[in-house]
């Protein structure tokens, strides 16, 4: 029924406080937009101040990752003995064309500990009791590795350069002043015979 749908939109508009214009929404527009499994977000390079608020929405094609489950370690009785809750995700770094070339290189350099002989990056998680959540944790760890590797060193801004130059100059002046003071002290100790 289109009428309830329009009414829903009307109510939604009313609640949101917008001007009510009877829209003709396409029915079932929620589910018809499933074209690609990608999110078009660019990774915002962090400035020095906003490192915490960086987007961690790197696109990771799930079908390119190899996921395997095994039994976790540690205490837990029957549950830990029987249920495979440890999630392990791996992918070959060099052939991962969904990551940029330079970022790939950086990942390879930085995470030597996580890369095995075959060149695959291995990420495991046994954080929680459920496979589901551990897999999500693995994916988030991978996305964190990628964002860390794609961080570019921030260039100093103009005011930074000016501040740095001013500080260097001040330092030099101070050094020369001290030098002159020392020199006068030494001179005053000298006794000159005419």
């Amino acid at each position: 029924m289109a009428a309830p749908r329009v009414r829903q939109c009307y109510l939604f508009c009313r609640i949101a406080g917008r001007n009510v214009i009877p829209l003709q929404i396409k029915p079932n527009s929620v589910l018809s937009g499933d074209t690609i499994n990608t999110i078009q977000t660019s990774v915002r390079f962090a400035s020095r101040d906003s490192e915490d608020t960086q987007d961690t929405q790197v696109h990771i094609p799930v079908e390119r990752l190899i996921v395997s489950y095994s039994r976790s370690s540690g205490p837990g009785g029957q549950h830990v003995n029987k249920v495979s809750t440890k999630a392990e995700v791996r992918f070959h770094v060099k052939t991962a064309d969904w990551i940029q070339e330079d970022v790939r290189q950086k990942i390879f350099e930085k995470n030597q500990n996580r890369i095995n002989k075959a060149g695959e990056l291995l990420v495991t998680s046994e954080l929680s009791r459920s496979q589901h959540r551990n897999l999500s944790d693995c994916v988030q760890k991978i996305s964190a590795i990628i964002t860390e590797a794609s961080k570019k060193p921030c260039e100093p801004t103009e005011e930074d350069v000016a501040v740095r130059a001013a500080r260097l100059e001040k330092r030099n002046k101070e050094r020369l002043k001290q030098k002159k003071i020392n020199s006068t002290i030494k001179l005053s100790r000298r006794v000159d015979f005419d």
Partner: protein
Amino acid sequence: MSVPKLPGAKALGVLQTLPRISLANLRPEPGSKKEDRRRGRGQHGGNRSGRGHKGERQRGNRPRLGFEGGQTPFYLVIPKYGFNEGHSRRPQYQPLSLRRLQYLIDLGRVDTTQPIDLTQLVNGRGVTIQPLKRDYGVQLVDEGASKFSAKIHIEVQRASEGAIAAIERNGGVITTSFYDPISLGILIKPVPFFLRGQPIPKRMLPGQEMVPYYMDAENRGYMADPEKIQQARLALAQKYGYILPDISKDELYHMLSMRKDVRQIFFGLAPGWVVNMSEKKILKPTDEKLLKYYGS
């Protein structure tokens, strides 16, 4: 064998010949009834009868629970703090784990070919909701998400992120919607409501604190923007590491895309209608004012 053997013939014969069952003929199965231990009888039950030696213990005069012999008891030492303040005004949601939901689906108590509503869950005796005890519905909890594998269209009142991910991963649809207490009472027991003969009321909108929850696409709220919901589905698929199945290509797409209107309580019934159970008729209002009221 000249006489053909009929099933139950022997038992029938026995029943016909034996005398009528009465209290005099009945006896419990030997070994089913075990005698209780009785205090005050015999070498082991007698003497002090398990009460100890003298004192308050034997004489049955022990002080009240929590008394510590005069020392300020634990329950008075700890200062009061408003943990339970306003507990009777807090909305409660009965938890429904995905494990239980899978169990109900496997046993056939809940039909997956139709949208799963709170009414369907209560009919299948999956959950018990008590609207008079400040229950505002059911919440979906993600215990058992790893083993959940059913494609369903479900409508609950609250859902955790993991539960939403598990349902969407299997190609299902989940929505969270609000029911005020009166609508909730009608939803869980529709037949007694219809027998009252009152018109179906319109469902009220959520209060100020709950509106942000139901307008958020992350929670799949029923008042959220459909495009934002689509984006949220993709984002969640990314986060939980699964490929989001395309629902529009599904054969049950029509069922999965059925949505209730904001003021609607039942699928297929609008507010203002009166359902006559005995004559199996539905009466709809014709007066302008009523139509305007129920249409708003």
